[in-house]
Each structure stands twice: as C-alpha cells, then as structure tokens.
C-alpha cells in the first residue's frame, strides 16, 4: 500500500482559475443551454430534460439524426481501425532495423502525420476529383464511374483512404517502437527452436506489441470518433448526409440552425462518450507506466 500526499495540488490553483474561465464556465454554459430553448434575441425558456429525451429517442427528428451520425461515426471508426491496425503492423514489420534506411523510413512515415487536417482534406478533395484530380481522373479513365460528391460509397471510400493515408504511419511508428524494444535474445531462441516466421510473430512480436497496439487502437478510435475537419473539407458531410459524422452534425445544429439547446444536449452526450474512452486510455497508459516501473525496479 502506497500513501499518496496530494497537497502539492494546491499549487495548481492559479491554473485552475484560468481553466475555470476558459473551460469549466463554458462547459457549465453548455449544460445550462441544454435544459433551455431559445428563439434568438437571447431569450431563453426552460425546457427541462426535453432535449435529452428527444435526443435519445430515435423516432424523433433530433434523436434520428443523432443516432444516424453516431452509427456512421462508429462504422467509420471500425473500418479505419480494421484497416490501419493490420496495415500498420505489416509496415512496422517490413521496416528496416538498422542503417541509414531507418532514418529515411522514419522521416517518410512521419510526413503525413505533420500535415494539418484541413490541408489533408484539401489534398484529397482535389486529388479525388474526376475533372482535375489525378486519382479521380485515372479511376474514371479506367471505366469506373467514381464521383465522391455524388455517390455515397465513393465518398466513404475517399474518406477512408484519406484517413488510412494520414494515420497508418502513427500505428506503424508505434508498432515499430514496440518491435525495437524486443531483445535480440528472443529471436535467437526462436531460431534455435527452428520457429517459423509466423510462430515468431504470433508468440514473440505480437505479445510484445500488445501495449503499443492498445494505445494505437485507443488513440485512433478517439481521433476518428472526433473527426471533423477532413470530412468537412472533403465532402461537407455529403452527399446528402452520407458522411455527416457526429461533430459535423453538431456544428450544423449549433452554428447552422443555431439550435443551442439541442446542440448542447447532443454535445454533452457526445462528450460523455469521449470522456469514457479518454478515461480508458488514461487508465491503460498510467497502468502501463506503473507496470514498467515494477519491471525496472
């Protein structure tokens, strides 16, 4: 049992004051809006839990669009995870272990991660266009009717390929770090036992990458669940509502329609989901650190 003295936390009181102004009060405002309705002119009317009731009822307009966007968002996260994680592992396994190629690979891999979201969105918006984009033009010339502004499937494919292009490197770099931490003795032992490539992967590399993979999955899930800029730039949520994810819908609701009450209720539920994932992420990370300290001690 370890007794923790938390008195040093009092030193963060000045920071707390700043955070209160920039984060806590705004959150309180959101909660405050979520129980009221406004018709503009800064006049508010008490609505109780009405917006939450609408939001959680899929047969209502608000609930319908929220759950649609939520399922769409979860489907998107599931698809990109199913692609990026195995692909990232494969890339990490294929990366060189020593020599100048390591640095070259690492720099190349890190490049997409350094590009801002809106630029990535713009790149793919133009790249996938049928008239002036290389990708769209080529695919169309191959005889495939590809149009991401008109066809739902094409829009999804473009967004998914864009996300895979942008973020697979992150998974690969994390896996590479995990692979690098495996002592050579493991591989020597495997060679002596005459283990196949697959056996080495299954019993040495994959278990040793477990932690970093968990971090990669959680990180990618959170990011993709909160994705806004890239689909906003690429498709604007269209065609129709086909790529309207929760954050895009939220902005439409709050700033497009100025339905502050509905948007506040939606953002609270959205926030709560993200908070749970963040908490899991934080718990996994801190326990991974604690484990390492135990091992090193």
């Amino acid at each position, binding site marked *: *049992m*370890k*007794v*923790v*003295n*938390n*008195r040093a936390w009092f030193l963060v009181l000045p920071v707390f004051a700043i955070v209160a102004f920039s984060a806590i009060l705004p959150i*309180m*405002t959101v*909660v*405050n*809006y979520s*129980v*009221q309705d*406004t018709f503009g002119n*800064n006049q*508010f009317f*008490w609505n*109780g*839990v009405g917006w*939450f*009731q609408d939001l*959680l*009822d899929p047969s209502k307009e608000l609930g319908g669009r929220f759950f649609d966007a939520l399922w769409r968002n979860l489907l998107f996260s599931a698809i990109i995870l199913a692609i990026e994680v195995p692909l990232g592992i494969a890339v990490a396994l294929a990366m060189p272990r020593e020599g100048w190629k390591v640095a070259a690979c690492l720099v190349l891999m890190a490049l997409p991660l350094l590009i801002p979201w809106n630029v990535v969105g713009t790149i793919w918006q133009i790249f996938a266009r049928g008239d002036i984009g290389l990708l769209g033009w080529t695919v169309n010339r191959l005889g495939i009717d590809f149009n991401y502004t008109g066809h739902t499937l094409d829009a999804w494919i473009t967004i998914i390929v864009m996300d895979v292009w942008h973020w697979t490197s992150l998974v690969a770099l994390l896996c590479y770090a995990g692979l690098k931490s495996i002592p050579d003795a493991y591989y020597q032992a495997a060679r002596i036992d005459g283990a196949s490539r697959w056996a080495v992967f299954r019993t040495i590399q994959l278990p040793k990458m477990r932690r970093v993979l968990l971090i990669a999955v959680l990180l990618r899930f959170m990011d993709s669940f909160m994705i806004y800029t890239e689909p906003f730039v690429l498709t604007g949520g269209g065609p129709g509502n086909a790529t309207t994810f929760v954050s895009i819908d939220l902005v439409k609701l709050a700033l497009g329609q100025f339905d502050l009450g509905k948007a506040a209720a939606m953002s609270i*539920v959205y926030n*709560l989901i993200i*908070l*749970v994932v963040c*908490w899991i992420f934080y*718990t996994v990370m801190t*326990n991974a650190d*604690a484990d390492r300290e135990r091992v090193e001690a």
Partner: protein
Amino acid sequence: MPDFSWMAWTWQTALFFSVIGALLLVMTVLAVLFPETERVGILRIPTTRGDRLFISLLGAAFINLAWLGLMGPDPVWALGLSLAYAAAVFRYV
C-alpha cells in the same frame, strides 16, 4: 456586480454544479485529512477515492441518460440507481 442575465443561468444548473463542486470540495478536504491510498478492486486497476468518485459520476451520467431514453423522465429512480451504483463502486472497485 456586473449583469450576468445574458448568460441565462438557471437555478437548476447552479444546483447541479453546486452538488458536483461540493462533492469535489468534500473529497479534497478528506484527501488532505486522510491521504488517499490506492487499492485494486474488481476492475483490476489501482484506484483512489477520487478515481472512484470519477467513475461514479461518469456512470451516473450514463445511468440517468439510459433511464431517460428507455423509461422516461423520472429522475428519482435514475438517481436512486446512480447512488446504488456509486456505493457499489466505492465498495468494490
């Protein structure tokens, strides 16, 4: 005193955050008087009292939302369930 009426505060919001603020204050005072100790419960992760409060509050939010969505606006039952959940978290997690 500046005019804050443009922020459209309601007493219900104030009550909600007062309760959470009071909880945090009580827990802080308790943490100073009786330093928190970590323990490992059914979740198999080390938690302090503060962690358990966080898990309780977060769970309570979902319990209230689920009750509202499935059963309707009857906060008494949802609150009761949340309290039972919080008690279980503080006892077993």
